[in-house]
């Protein structure tokens, strides 16, 4: 096998991206746990963890640039690098949103009171979590089948998002909220907005993995 050094570097790149995905996923999981349990300390850790994600982002970008400049990658190798380059941006954005959610959790400082049915919100949280986890999985495994399910799942998330938002707006409009609750609702609106964006980035990652594996580009609708 020729170019062993190059192949090792390429493998390292994939491992690093997967690892970045893993810590991003952990942040997502942690922040959602913190949200559920009003664990400000855990939320604080998530905020700190964002730096680690950003560092990973810079490190992997440098790896990609060096591979591009020095190794003239072609074909799938080229697509892996292109995908990784773009994907770390998605991960970094997910990390940012996670930190934003964590800040909301810290700001609220207490368990939130949700003025609407919790079941849809919980479903949204669970869906986003699994989407992020699956997006990392698709990259690590090159699992195109899994990635193909993302758009449909994203549609469901969009529906849940809209439904939860609508319900909250209705609640506000009907004056069902106390003054304290209004602030919580505002925070919650941000949080579910962030979750919806995280899901979008997860879909991006899925599409990129499809391109990486198959060469055909898929674009967001």
């Amino acid at each position, binding site marked *: 096998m*020729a170019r062993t050094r190059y192949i090792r570097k390429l493998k390292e790149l994939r491992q690093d991206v997967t690892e970045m995905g893993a810590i991003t996923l952990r942040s997502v999981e942690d922040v959602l746990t913190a949200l559920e349990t009003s664990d400000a300390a855990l939320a604080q850790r998530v905020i700190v963890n964002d730096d680690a994600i950003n560092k990973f982002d810079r490190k992997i970008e440098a790896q990609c640039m060096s591979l591009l400049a020095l190794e003239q*990658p*072609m074909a799938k190798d*080229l*697509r892996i690098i292109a995908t990784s380059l773009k994907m770390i941006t998605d991960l970094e954005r997910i990390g940012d949103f996670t930190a934003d959610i964590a800040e909301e959790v810290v700001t609220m400082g207490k368990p939130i009171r949700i003025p609407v049915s919790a079941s849809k919100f919980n479903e949204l949280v669970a869906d986003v979590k699994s989407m992020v986890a699956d997006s990392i999985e698709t990259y690590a495994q090159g699992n195109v089948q899994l990635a193909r399910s993302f758009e449909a799942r994203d549609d469901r998330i969009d529906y849940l998002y809209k439904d939860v938002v609508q319900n909250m707006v209705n609640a506000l409009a009907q004056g069902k909220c106390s003054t304290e609750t209004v602030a919580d609702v505002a925070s919650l609106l941000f949080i579910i907005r962030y979750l919806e964006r995280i899901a979008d980035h997860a879909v991006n990652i899925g599409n990129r993995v499809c391109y990486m594996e*198959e060469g055909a580009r898929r674009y967001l609708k």
Partner: protein
Amino acid sequence: MSGEIEISVKNLNLWFGNFQALKNVNIDIPKNAVTALIGPSGCGKSTFIKTLDRMNDLVDNVKFTGEVIYKGRNILNSDTDVVALRKEIGMVFQKPNPFPKSIFDNVAYGPRVHGIRDKKALNEIVERSLKGAAIWDEVKDRLNESALRLSGGQQQRLCIARLLAVEPDVLLMDEPASALDPIATSKIEDLIYELKKEYTIIIVTHNMQQAARVSSHTAFFFLGELVEYASTIDLFERPREKKTEDYVTGKFG
């Protein structure tokens, strides 16, 4: 593939003695475009372009089957006038090979052997050809100097000018920049890019980046077979064949 087809190769097989160098090659070469041929050494790509101007005829024991349709006729037919064919399909070689004559005489060589004696006409052809090969400005004041005193890159462009002087339709280039430094190489590549407006160019190269830079279509040869033929971007970004993938990512060995 859009646009006109200049050369259409059908079921081409070629043997040197008992060794089959080309196996059932089918390819359509587009007109006024650059087609690159890549593949590991000995894969048949040089043999393939030498078939197009019948330079393989110089090798003993060569035999071939199939068709190479150019201007409506099969040039592999035994009644083909190879001398006339080579006037229309010219070749540039790996090593710049100017004759040990003056720059002028190098360029005038082709027109002279084709019967042009008039000094004024020759002057015009030489100037036009040297301009066409983007070397006129560098040599216009030293046309009577020996061509061997030019740098390698200049020699190669002179060889291209020499070819242009016989007004071919197709330019075959057998690794035209492999003996040159990067600057000379990029000048040749720029020249190729310019030339494709008027000529159909087929270039054999070991340098995949060069193929990627200059060509619109790329063909990958392996062990005498045409493994994959696609637009250059497709071939390098998303090859269909595993062999191509392995070759362009450098995983052969």
